[in-house]
């Protein structure tokens, strides 16, 4: 047997080019479906992790998927806004802390995430440089946003109007960058974070302008009658909030009526979670409460259906490749007829010649299986890291 294997090894080594092609084909046939499965599983786990770290999300009634994608991944179209009072209602219930989210506007193509200071604690986000925002109009950039824009602490970004033709709409707000987050390998890397009140300023619900009682604003004043001052649109409205003019900024009306796209709710236990979910079951309720893990689970089921089609395709391609490999072996047997006749003439039995031919195939197959297993192992260990490194390039 040892001699047979030696002869097989020498044959494969001599025809190394043909052996290499066969080995590569068999390795890839085995690796592709298995490796794909491993990568999909890893992606699913990562998606699920973020969803599972977000126990409950409250938003306006509508598509739960849109709500979750907007709140967790800042990707979807912004869902129908709801009143900030909903966040206050959950907070005042004492059942769970809340984190308001208003993900609607963009700056230079990146989503502006209006939220509260708690968001950074909740997602365990750390600063790479600078500090977290403290004043209205300050922003903190995700790591990839900062890299893409080449931005540093002290620079600024300007919000983009939703509609260029809405001349009476929101003013672009120039926001000072006070901090840059460290990489978290999450959607937070691709977002610009501001206080939710800053998004309300972008929307025009809060604004800062010259004091109409001061002399500098006289040219904008149309009439002044006792305590009533009427000004025209030429009054200087600030499009950048600085420590000097921040006191001039103010909000009109009741903050409770201001919009948010969602409220992340963080119940400390199952009982609080159940109580909160129960409060949103009424048909008259204008808000919905979603469990992101369930919403993403349903989405992943759909993805797995697609994945099974991809796997089926890979298996068919694999079978075709295996058939080709078998053909290569059979053709090589025909080409090696004279070689086999020589082996018979020098005393080789039919069984030993057959074993020699078979062992060549077995060696190639076993080597292919070992290589595919090795690649799958490497994928399971370093696949996620590799994907992240590629993304950061």
């Amino acid at each position, binding site marked *: 047997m040892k001699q047979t294997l030696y002869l097989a090894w020498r044959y494969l080594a001599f025809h190394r080019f043909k052996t290499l092609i066969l080995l590569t084909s068999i390795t890839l046939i085995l690796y592709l479906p298995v490796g794909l499965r491993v990568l999909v599983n890893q*992606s699913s786990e*990562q*998606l699920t*992790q*973020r969803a599972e*770290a977000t126990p409950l999300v409250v938003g306006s009634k509508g598509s739960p*998927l849109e709500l979750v994608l907007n709140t967790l*991944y800042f*990707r*979807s179209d912004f869902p129908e806004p709801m009143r900030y009072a909903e*966040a206050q209602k959950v*907070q005042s219930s*004492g059942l769970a*802390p*809340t984190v*308001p989210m208003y993900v609607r506007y963009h700056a230079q193509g990146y989503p502006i995430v209006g939220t*509260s*200071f*708690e968001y950074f*604690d*909740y*997602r365990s986000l750390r600063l790479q440089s600078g*500090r*977290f*925002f*403290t*004043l*209205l109009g300050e922003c903190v950039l995700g790591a990839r946003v900062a890299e893409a824009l080449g931005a540093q602490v002290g620079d600024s970004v300007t919000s983009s109007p939703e509609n260029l033709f809405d001349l*009476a709409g929101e003013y672009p707000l120039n926001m000072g960058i006070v901090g840059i987050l460290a990489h*978290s*390998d*999450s*959607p937070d*890397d691709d977002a610009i974070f501001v*206080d939710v*009140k800053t998004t309300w300023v972008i929307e025009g619900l809060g604004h800062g*302008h010259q004091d*109409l*009682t001061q002399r500098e604003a006289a040219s904008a004043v149309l009439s002044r009658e006792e*305590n*009533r*001052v*009427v*000004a*025209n*649109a030429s*009054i200087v409205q600030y499009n950048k909030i600085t420590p000097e003019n*921040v*006191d001039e*900024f*103010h*909000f*009109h009306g009741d903050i409770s009526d201001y919009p948010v796209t969602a409220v992340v709710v963080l119940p*400390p236990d199952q009982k609080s979670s159940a109580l909160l979910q129960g409060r949103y079951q009424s048909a008259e309720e204008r808000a919905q409460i979603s469990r992101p893990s369930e919403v993403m689970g349903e*989405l992943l089921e*759909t993805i797995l259906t*697609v994945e099974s089609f991809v796997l089926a395709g890979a298996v068919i391609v694999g079978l075709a490749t295996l058939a080709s490999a078998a053909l290569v072996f059979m053709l090589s047997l025909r080409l090696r007829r004279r070689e086999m006749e020589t082996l018979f003439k020098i005393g080789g039995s039919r069984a030993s010649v057959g074993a020699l031919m078979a062992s060549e195939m077995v060696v190639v197959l076993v080597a292919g299986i070992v290589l595919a297993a090795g690649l799958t192992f490497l994928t399971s260990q370093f696949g996620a890291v590799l*994907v*992240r490194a590629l*993304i950061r390039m």
Partner: protein
Amino acid sequence: MRWLSFIAALSIGCGGSEPSPDIAPASSAPTFSVYTVNYPLQYFAERIGGEHVTVSFPAPAGDPASWSPDAEAISAYQQADLILLNGASYAKWVATVTLPTSKLVDTSSSFADRYIMVEDAVVHSHGPEGEHSHGETAFTTWIDATLAIRHAAAIRDSFVSARPEHESDFHQGFAELERDLAAVDERIEAAITGGSDVGLVGSNPVYQYFARRYGLSVPSVHFEPDTYPEADGWHDLEHLLEDHAATWMIWEDQPIVQTSDKLSDMGIQSAVFEPCSNRPDFGDYLSVMETNAAAIDRIFSAQ
């Protein structure tokens, strides 16, 4: 197929492991940190919280109503376990800074329907949003001792919620504070109801809640204790006196001699009723309120 593009993007963007929520304040800490926006709230919190609470109020001397904290002070507020707000539009800087919403406690929300609107606030309009005004709510709520007790009750409740293991201590601290505040209230009420009929005028519009509590009419001018009023100010006072016969002006601090002499010439005596919105140079909130009560006693017992 739109969601497929989402998936590609999402799986790329979600490489990191997500942490578990850790937003709830740790309840195992021996004391917890409380920040306030004025001195009365600090005093109430210290009386109620006792040794279980570290209360900070980082504003410098002066009127905290016009104070805006710098970034360092805001960071300190952000790190607190609880932030006690006065409500009633007090501390306008709160609206323009980032504070953790789950830690904010509006201590006057239970009596928001009793806020007093300032009648002479400037109303203005520009653009499509229509007529509006800024800072139209009177905010010195704590000079009405009955409202001060309700501030204190809100503080007690927030402490109990944050540190339920010390509930009995918080209730005891509140009960003692309530007794002291009620005593001040009774003393002032007794002085006013048992005293002579006196017309009061405020040196500044900060006495609205005091006036309402005791059924008084205290219109005001805009006089500063350390500055001699300009002619317009005196004109406003004369105009006010045409409809309101006042014999005493109550001040936030002792007025300069020239001002009090001029008032005296007009038949108006001066007395100090400190709102005590910042730390007093001597004593504490309660002792200042007791001094205020003594001043009211003196005013209404004078012939």
